[in-house]
């Protein structure tokens, strides 16, 4: 299973990069993927999750070829 992970805005700066590719033997939830990719960084409060460009929950199971995104509260407009 191949997952594309993306970070935006302040979260991108904290993580230190914009994208990551992840190979998984089995589906994991968004929060489990965060932990696996960022073992030394607790997920900041209020982080939003999107799977394939739609809002999702932290416990959403991410599937093969999904694009998973983490970002801070939005501030457009």
């Amino acid at each position, binding site marked *: 299973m191949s997952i594309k992970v993306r970070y935006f805005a302040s979260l991108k700066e904290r993580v230190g990069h914009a994208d990551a590719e992840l190979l998984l033997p089995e589906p994991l939830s968004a929060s489990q993927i965060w932990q696996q990719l960022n073992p030394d960084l607790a997920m900041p409060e209020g982080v939003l999750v999107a799977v394939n460009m739609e809002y999702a929950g932290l416990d959403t199971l991410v599937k093969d070829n999904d694009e998973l995104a983490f970002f801070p509260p939005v*501030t*457009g*407009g």
Partner: protein
Amino acid sequence: MSISLTSQAFDPWQSLAEYQAQQLAGKYGATAVFVGTMRDFNQGDGVVGMTLEHYPGMTEKQLALIVEQANQQWVLMDTLLIHRIGDVVPDDSLVLVAAWSAHRGDAFDACRFIMEALKKQAPFWKKERLASGEVRWVESNSNGYQK
């Protein structure tokens, strides 16, 4: 219906005039418009510039969803939405939302709904450059329905 992201400065009134020139004449009675403009201060600090980051693909998708929800709740003839991305300076228009309807209640409600949903759901992030030289991320949007 038109939704666009632009990295170029735009004049909201000219955009409205041009868009409306394409509209079916004589069918709408009410137009409600909101324009958000970059201010030169925020939270007590002078701001000299800003960068608007977005999530290409998802931002467009979320905006289309919000406008679709507005069309399900109110009877609209047309909508126009323009949002700046990239580098902006004070006085630049950041966002334009317009709703045309036969009746003013629908136009007002839809315009406001689109703005509030955009502020809450559309993936944009503002990074401010302060007069002091400091650079900081804006942390959250207010709720525009509260006083």
